[in-house]
């Protein structure tokens, strides 16, 4: 009877109707990402094996490791694409990433750039950024919303940051490989993320493009936390404060580039090959 009574109360909604809003990001401890004891296996192969990784707020972290070390799988776990078999993943103090799906995680403030540049090729640069813009992404809102001037300014600002302000009208498909990478980083910025996961930003870039990318990522750190997965050692050296070496799905070493390069185990598995 009391159950029925509480179900009929008019001053509150049923639990399943209440919107499931994740709590605001809590960064009181200065840490933005906690991965603890994460294990994932695909058909018996352990892609990630008891991985522990902590990212500080505002940090620029590089993650290196040989092919198959689990770098991309790790990103898949953080962004909700893959569910780990065990372990925990927290965004700030209070957001449990393992209970959320991709759009929710994106909404909470994690942006991801793919290994292969993925932009909307049949849209103009402006439209690419417009779609990525933070805001209400429910279908009805998307149908009726228009760009207002503040948002246009923001798009213009991001176009300037990524150095593509002049091409704003062009189709993303007509950009060069490196420019697409920048556009994708620009799309991340439009999302207003707190944490950016950037998978191989320098792949297929010329040296000049690489330098600009390094500059761009370094300038983003501070306001955002940036995690970069990269193969190119020169590139990593040019940007990194702290480097984490992954090997066979777990952390092998962590420290500055010099420390890591002089680590015997690292030389053995990776740098010395």
């Amino acid at each position, binding site marked *: 009877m009391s159950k029925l009574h509480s179900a009929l109360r008019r001053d509150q909604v049923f639990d399943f109707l209440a919107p499931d809003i994740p709590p605001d990001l809590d960064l009181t401890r200065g840490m933005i990402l906690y991965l603890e004891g994460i294990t994932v296996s695909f058909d018996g192969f352990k892609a990630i094996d008891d991985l522990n990784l902590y990212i500080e707020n505002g940090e620029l972290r590089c993650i290196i490791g040989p092919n198959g070390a689990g770098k991309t799988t790790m990103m898949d776990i953080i962004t909700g694409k893959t569910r780990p078999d065990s372990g925990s993943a927290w965004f700030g103090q209070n957001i449990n990433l393992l209970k959320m799906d991709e759009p929710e995680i994106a909404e909470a403030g994690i942006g991801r750039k793919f290994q292969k540049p993925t*932009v909307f090729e049949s849209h103009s640069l402006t439209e690419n950024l417009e779609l990525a813009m933070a805001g209400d992404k429910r279908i009805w809102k998307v149908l009726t919303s228009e760009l207002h001037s503040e948002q246009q300014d923001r798009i213009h600002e991001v176009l300037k940051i990524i150095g593509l302000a002049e091409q704003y009208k062009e189709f993303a498909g007509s950009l060069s490989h490196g420019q697409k990478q920048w556009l994708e980083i620009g799309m991340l910025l439009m999302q207003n993320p707190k944490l950016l996961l950037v998978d191989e930003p320098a792949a297929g870039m010329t040296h000049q493009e690489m330098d600009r990318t390094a500059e761009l990522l370094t300038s983003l750190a501070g306001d955002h936390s940036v995690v970069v997965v990269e193969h190119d050692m020169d590139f990593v050296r040019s940007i990194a404060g702290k480097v984490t070496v992954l090997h066979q799905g777990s952390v092998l070493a962590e420290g500055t580039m010099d420390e890591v390069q002089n680590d015997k185990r690292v030389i053995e598995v990776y740098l010395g090959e």
Partner: protein
Amino acid sequence: MLMLSILTLAAVLIPIGNIVVPESSGFHVSTYTMTLLGKYLCYALLAVAVDLVWGYLGILSLGHGAFFALGGYSMGMYLMRQIGDRGVYGHPLLPDFMVFLNWEKLPWFWHGFDSFWFAMLMVVLVPGLLALIFGWFAFRSRVTGVYLSIMTQAMTYALLLAFFRNEMGFGGNNGLTDFKDILGFPLQADTTRVGLFIASAVALGFGYLSCLYITRSRLGRLCRAIRDQEDRTRFIGYRVENAKLWIFTFSAMLAGIAGALYVPQVGIINPGEFAPLVSIEIIIWVAVGGRATLYGAVAGALMVNYSKSFLTAAMPDAWLFALGALFVLVTLLLPRGVVGLFTRKQ
């Protein structure tokens, strides 16, 4: 806009040509021609609905004929109930086929269809609900590409088999026919035909405009983004499954409206409309006209169906070969369809 002007012009001139212009004049439009054109307009609306999900959202639906047929059946049920006691058996309540099957009562799902507005509601609700349920399962589990196409095909085939059965209560393989009048107007009268033609043109205009509104909104840009890079849209925070679900459902409703206007003009609806081949033909109309342009879908539907009417009369055996050849040639030579010939590549 050109498309809408032509449509408006047709909706005004053709009825005038039928009613006002005397039969002796060269500008007289026969009722047969007008009804044929009205039928094409329904097809065009169906093509627009398919273009919305295929051209813009990348969902190759090989089952849109099912939504068209369900809309048609809803209208057919209303028209059957309108017959009243004028059927062959003269039963005041039961349609002929039920009397023939020795049924004593009207099945529960036939109730309410004596009301025009209830039937019109069902015209959009039944296809919409089917699309909603189908889409909810399919899109949530992220079925895409050819697998989704096969599922849509299976859906329409399952409905085909079900509607063939007499026990279903929709007239079995004969379907619903022998319609007498709609809203009290006799279906054979020229003026009723004019009304249906104009209604078809208005429905096409409405469908075209609403699709245009969707495709030009941010949601339209999102749809094309989903078509091109589904993962990317998910990682920037869009619920891809919801976008697909609502667009798919809306498209199914448009297809239902097209079916409802088609049935009184051709005078019959039978399970043949559920045949997978019918749904594949719709895809051909859109491909021939040009995907992701909307007006291309309209042009494709009109062109292919006109050639069909012409060829099936002139050389009945050649039609299917012509259709197949058309599809192959368009795919190979005109990937952007016939309208692609007239628009510059972006």
